[in-house]
């Protein structure tokens, strides 16, 4: 069979000697898989310790009088107390940032970003895909490893990651980064943005996990081994 490979870095192998012929495609290079999982671990730790930090002052208003926005259940938190949570949070903020930078750097330098970066021309593919997933529409033809909706989701997730780090830096060092903070509307707003990004990332993760469950075993395995068996865009 002949297929145009999705990216320069991807490799494809066909097996027709087997009883049932199949092909596998190298879809996720090591750097992408490693950063994906290191980032996943970091994100869960940052969310848990972040919620513990939030428990110290669960409000976005004044200290006096203090109105609790809501109380985070301890079972969702990490670190035990504010000091412990801060240790987890700053430690994994580094791991999260560094693996994020390696991921983006690898994608850009290898050209691998072409298969996943959302661009304007992907815009018209978003609605058909959303109609398929959420409104029982017909499944659009798959011609690439990532469909338009996926590209949009993953590109937005990277942007959320960038915003989470930048707002975090402002919260950690608001004096040294006072200019960056003023772009966010000041210390208060940076704190609100930082929390908003957490909410958005949680929504992304939930959607991501639902999609992974819907797309089955071969798809999940590819994020561990890099190789995907019989991807639907090669059918």
């Amino acid at each position, binding site marked *: 069979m002949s297929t145009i490979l999705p990216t320069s870095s991807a*490799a494809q*192998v066909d*097996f027709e000697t*087997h009883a049932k012929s199949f092909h*596998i495609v190298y879809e996720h290079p*090591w750097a992408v*898989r*490693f950063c994906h*999982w*290191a980032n996943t*671990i970091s994100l869960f*730790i940052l969310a848990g310790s972040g919620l513990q*930090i*939030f428990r*110290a*002052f669960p*409000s976005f208003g*004044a*200290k*006096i009088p*203090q109105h609790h926005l809501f109380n985070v259940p301890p079972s969702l938190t990490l670190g035990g107390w*504010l*000091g*412990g949570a*801060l*240790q*987890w949070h*700053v*430690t*994994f*903020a*580094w791991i999260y940032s560094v693996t994020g930078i390696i991921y983006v750097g690898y994608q850009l330098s290898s050209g691998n970003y072409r298969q996943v970066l959302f661009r304007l021309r992907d815009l018209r593919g978003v609605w058909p895909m959303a109609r398929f997933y959420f409104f029982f529409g017909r499944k659009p033809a798959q011609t690439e490893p990532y469909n338009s909706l996926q590209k949009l989701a993953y590109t937005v997730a990277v942007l959320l990651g960038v915003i989470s780090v930048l707002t975090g830096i402002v919260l*950690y*060092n*608001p*004096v*040294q980064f*006072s200019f960056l903070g003023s772009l966010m509307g000041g*210390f*208060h707003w940076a*704190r609100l943005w930082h929390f908003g990004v957490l909410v958005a990332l949680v929504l992304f993760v939930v959607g991501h996990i639902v999609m992974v469950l819907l797309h089955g075993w071969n798809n999940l*395995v590819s994020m*561990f*081994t*890099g*190789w995907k*068996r019989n991807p639907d865009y090669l059918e």
Partner: protein
Amino acid sequence: MPKDLEEKPGRTVGRRELLKLSPLLLFGAFALPKFQPGLLKGGLDFSDRASAQWHRKNHLAPTFADAELTPFDQFPLNSYDIDDPDVDLTKWTLTVDGDVHRAGEYTLARIQALPKFTQNTRHICVEGWDVIGRFGGVRLSDFLELVGANTQARFLYFDCADGYYESLDMESALHPQSMLCYEMYDRPLTREHGAPLRLLLPIKIGYKSAKYLTSFRVTDVLAKAGYWEDQGYSSYYGL
């Protein structure tokens, strides 16, 4: 086509690629009680060193107009146990020792004879809230000069009347906004805000601005870093 793929398609190469992710198992060390405290302390210290690195010596913390001040009665008290440690204000002196030329007892009048300045700055608590207050006092750097401190030494160490203790790196102590504060909102410090003398450090997180100071040491070695620091908070925490 990779050679082992030609021979054993599928499983072998998958297993090999999976093994390449094994460095991720190192994260497991964070779950082991034997390694966890050291790793987290290491992360905290690394962060402290990094933020000391990008700390700009004379970069000023933002200052604010009087109209932006948090009303005095809404300036929080986050004293860790007591609001009034019973300081005898008539007999109070600040004990100065360590790497200084003129060790001894310094009265409040002697400190207040140094050039006074006031600043409206933001006080940010590690808990996440912040307020803008008006503070009056003397530059810590002027006081260091008065006592003949060796400014090549690494740290200042403070003891407080309520048992609190705190440390400060010399570079931050020499910052033009670092203050020995004896006034808030143009009135002498009240007891609950640290009378008669407190630290006020706009370039540091709130818990570094210790209240009820009683003694002051210039030193290269810290036996203790601070009340909260010794329980796990950052000891540098520059803003």
